[in-house]
């Protein structure tokens, strides 16, 4: 699958609130289909359908426990999809950290000026 195809699959999978909730739940730890069905008042087959979409997008995988088949969240596709915004964020966060430092400097110099102005004449 190309990066573009993977992104398509990722966003298609994320386009459903139940699937996002499943991912949020799996982010806290692996869970079986039974575990996952509980909070959604959904049948197991319905949950399984969602899991299939998530699995095809590579967002989750199946654990090694053959009996329980717990699902696990996979970080890579989400990471790819978020890459652009993250690069942009990093760029600006860098600039803004420089602005933080400058603001501290300016605040300090203003305070010093105020103090000087307030100092009573001897």
């Amino acid at each position, binding site marked *: 699958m190309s990066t573009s195809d993977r992104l398509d699959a990722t966003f298609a999978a994320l386009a459903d609130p139940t699937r*996002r909730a499943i991912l949020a739940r799996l*982010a806290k730890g692996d869970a079986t289909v039974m575990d996952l069905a509980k909070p959604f008042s959904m049948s197991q087959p319905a949950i399984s359908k969602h899991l299939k979409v998530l699995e095809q997008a590579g967002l989750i995988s199946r654990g090694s426990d053959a009996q329980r088949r717990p699902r696990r969240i996979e970080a890579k596709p989400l990471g790819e999809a*978020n890459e652009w*915004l993250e690069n942009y964020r990093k760029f600006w966060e860098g*600039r*803004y950290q420089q602005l933080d430092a400058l603001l501290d400097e300016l605040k300090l110099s203003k305070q010093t000026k105020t103090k000087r102005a307030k100092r009573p004449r001897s």
Partner: protein
Amino acid sequence: METKSKLKVTAQGEREIVMTRDFDAPRDLVFECHTKPELLKKWLLGPDGWIMEVCEVNLKIGGKYRYVWKQIADGITMGMGGEFKVITRPELIHCTEVFDEAWYPGEALVQSHFLEKNERTTLIVTILYNSKETRDMVLKSPMEGGVAISYNRLEDLMETLTK
């Protein structure tokens, strides 16, 4: 000590990107830092190794601004500029943004809001592109349609994941 990132970037609606960032300073100061060349030159720099060579700001409605950055090592420059559309000191600036070597067609409208609370400032920058196509191109997205909404969802999900 809190180390998590302070800047939030999301796609919004069809044509916008929104950045939100808090600063531990009153908004008068944050506003000044965004509008006075001698202050802008101290922070609005490119990546390491770049300097801001030109910084001209004519802060009035219809006034222009121009920034040119230069890479010290090889002298490569990058320039951009635009025109001020709305100025409400110290809370609001709307200006256009055009890059010299346009990496996206047409101009974008940059709306900066400075909100103050308890001597702290929240800066909200909304970049509105001239079309959904442009914004999505800026998002460097190979996807068609629905990208903005998807990014919003992704953002929400990331928040859930990092909580």
